[in-house]
């Protein structure tokens, strides 16, 4: 007791010395922290995780995904595909308003999609909307998309903030990206890049009243410091990337850790255009030699789960049924011998420092596992941007990657595993089966049939092993226990902060 009082006293003295208030923040503002800041404000151009999370609070797409990845209304209250699947009609919410007070109408929707499709914009999501042939606006509350071919995944692609509806007037003024006028739950009052964002509630939001009056986001680059700031109640809510820090959260009495498996996947990308990965047997040997669970346990403290190519909960199959998901070193050695490489070979694996935080550890575990079948791996860690450059050029033997997931497998994988995929030069592998399975999955609208198509796709992909899928990790948020109403989702969206309250 004496000891405790002493500690308390010294704490208070220290607080007084440092001039710090130990009381919590004002009730109505949510104090939030993350280690990486948004990189820009144009919803059509940003793809960085933090940018999307910020913009989702300000802008709205036509539709949204709920926590189980089902499509729910956002700006549109209803939608319908025509019988032939080539016409998609949306009815807009008459209450939807931009933060400058003007109503969201069909002309804004048309202008937004035309902006995305315009090559001058440089919108990465354009690739998902190429089937849009024309857009009609019969009245202010109705939008009709005419498609050149049936495209079931387009609806999911439209739920992304990269397909946000922005005011036609702002597009004309050329102010998207410098001025933020969305229709979402919060307005951006201030952005000091790499330091902080100040958001205030949008009183006109069609979704109703928000639970807090505002959100202040601080950029605290060191996640250990974020945890420290949460201990002292300076921060109510935080986004965490590093499993090493996240696993410390439950040890704090006042803090709660939310975690949910994400759609993004950790993968060892082989480069099948480089010898000897050109050989199916070599790729399969690598797949058999890797113990995915051990990679997960050692590199990420077991924080995640082993996955096949499909990470979408509704479509994912049992990974233990996939090719060589149970480690089999003997089989791997046999395959190597059959490929004429009984003595193994040398290769370089690249990884990005800190992206994901587990990259270097994953590479090391894989290095030791592959050593058992004679593969000598040289690990080369690089700064993220240098890595991205090499990755986009396909300039690697093998790459440790954390690739983003999407709520639809076609949108997620057509870039790699179709003949016309824009990232074929990264994947460097395609066969007729993969391509036709993807095309079937794109056109099919019946959920059960789609599931079967993609299950076959997954099985085949694991068998031909151009990449070795490892695991999906968790997305982590930490919060004070007096924060209520946050719903973590596999997409990582923080949209439910709109209904969060401080008790």
């Amino acid at each position, binding site marked *: 007791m004496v000891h405790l009082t002493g500690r308390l006293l010294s704490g208070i003295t220290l607080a007084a010395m440092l001039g*710090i208030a130990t009381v919590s923040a004002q009730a109505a503002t949510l104090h939030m922290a993350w280690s990486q800041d948004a990189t820009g404000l144009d919803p059509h151009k940003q793809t960085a995780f933090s940018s999307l999370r910020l913009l989702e609070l300000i802008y709205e797409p036509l539709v949204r995904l709920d926590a189980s990845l089902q499509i729910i209304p956002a700006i549109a209250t209803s939608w319908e595909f025509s019988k032939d699947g080539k016409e998609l009609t949306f009815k807009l919410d008459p209450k939807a308003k931009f933060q400058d007070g003007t109503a969201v109408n069909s002309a804004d929707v048309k202008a937004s999609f035309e902006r995305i499709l315009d090559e*001058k914009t440089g919108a990465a999501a354009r690739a998902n909307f190429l089937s849009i042939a024309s857009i009609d606006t019969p009245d202010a509350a109705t939008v009709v998309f005419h498609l050149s071919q049936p495209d079931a995944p387009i609806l999911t692609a439209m739920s992304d903030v990269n397909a946000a509806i922005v005011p036609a007037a702002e597009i004309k003024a050329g102010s998207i990206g410098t001025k933020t006028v969305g229709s979402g739950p919060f307005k951006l009052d201030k952005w000091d890049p790499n330091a902080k964002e100040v958001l205030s509630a949008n009183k006109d939001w069609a979704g109703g009243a928000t639970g807090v009056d505002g959100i202040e986001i601080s950029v605290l680059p060191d996640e250990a410091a974020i945890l420290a700031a949460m201990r002292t109640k300076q921060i109510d809510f935080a986004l965490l990337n590093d499993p090493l820090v996240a696993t410390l959260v439950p040890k704090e009495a006042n803090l709660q850790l939310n975690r949910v498996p994400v759609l993004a996947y950790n993968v060892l990308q082989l480069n099948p255009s480089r010898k000897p990965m050109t050989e199916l047997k070599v790729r399969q040997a690598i797949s058999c030699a890797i113990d995915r669970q051990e990679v997960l346990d050692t590199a990420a403290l077991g924080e995640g789960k082993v996955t096949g190519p499909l990470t979408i909960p509704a479509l994912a199959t049992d990974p233990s049924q996939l090719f060589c998901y149970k480690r089999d070193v003997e089989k791997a050695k046999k395959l190597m011998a059959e490929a004429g490489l009984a003595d193994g070979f040398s290769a370089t694996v690249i990884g990005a420092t800190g992206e994901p935080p587990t990259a270097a550890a994953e590479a090391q575990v894989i290095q030791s596992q592959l050593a058992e079948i004679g593969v000598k791996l040289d690990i080369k860690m690089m700064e993220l941007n240098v890595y*991205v450059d090499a990755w986009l050029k396909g300039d690697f033997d093998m790459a440790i990657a954390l690739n*983003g997931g999407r709520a639809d497998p076609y949108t997620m994988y057509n870039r790699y595993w179709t003949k016309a995929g824009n990232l074929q030069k*990264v994947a460097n592998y395609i066969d007729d089966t993969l391509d036709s399975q993807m095309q079937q999955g794109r056109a099919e609208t019946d959920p059960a049939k789609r599931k079967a198509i993609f299950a076959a796709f997954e099985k085949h992909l694991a068998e031909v092993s151009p990449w070795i899928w490892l695991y999906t990790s968790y997305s982590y948020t930490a919060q004070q226990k007096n924060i209520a109403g946050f719903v973590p989702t596999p997409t990582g969206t923080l949209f439910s902060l709109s209904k969060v309250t401080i008790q």
Partner: protein
Amino acid sequence: MNYLLRRLATFPLVLLGVSILVFVAIRMVPGDSITAMLGTEAGLLTPAQRDSLAAYFGIDQPWFVQYWRWIGGILHGNFGISVTYGRPVLDVILERFPLTLELAVLSMIIALLVGMPAGIYAATHNEKPSDLGVRIIAMIGQSTPSFVLGLLIIYTLSAGFGVLPAMGEFAPLWQDPLRNLSQLILPAITLGFAFAASVTRIARSAMLDVLSDDYVRTARSKGASARSVIWRHALPNALIPVVTLSGIEFGYLLGGAVIVEQIYALPGLGRMVLDAILQRDYALVQGSVLFIAFNFMIVNLLVDLAYVALDPRIRLGEQ
């Protein structure tokens, strides 16, 4: 005076060299503003989309055109626009600089207040246990990386005492001095600790050197008190290496203390440059490196001038 003018005349030449170096270096690193913004999604862009973004970022021209444009702008006082901040580079730098300057000054004060007395004490107790103690602490100080010390301080305060200076929102000195100091004191201690250790070691060895000089022996034999020998006769001469060291360290600190700013989430110059490099904000990287180089040259000049003040025998610029 002549010397000062001659030194100032070399500034533009050095800065020109630095400008070329930083301009070329940042462009030699793979990746550009487009991959920095879009990451791997940049692979989904069509060539036309890429060209349009390159024009937006101003990286569509050959490098010598870009360089010429940049230098031309600087001569008119225009350092370019930061693509991250959407504001003039110089504005962004000048907004961050006061914090970095304050942090550097505070760390130097801590270093000198702790290091000088410790060094003198160790020198005057040469080879005694207390000297050994000082040397061991100094060795630990020099070899502890600032991120270890910084995290240790943060952890101990937050986990042990439940307190921590407000992080995230930084209060400038002139707006809220008390809050400002509460936010800067821990980073300054973190930086000052290693700095103080270096000062201690240099001060000790310089003092030992001077104490064995003839003139000190003369002073002693003339009956000067021990205190007067140390403070009046020996110290001024022992200061020269300390000034050199402090000048160099201070110059470095003006370039921003990246790790400490990162840990304590201080919006200083170091973190800004790091973020600018990671986001390939070329104009901001170039502008801030020039700014840092300029500061370094000024500090060096001041150090040289301090020599003259400390030792009348030194005449700058004379052979």
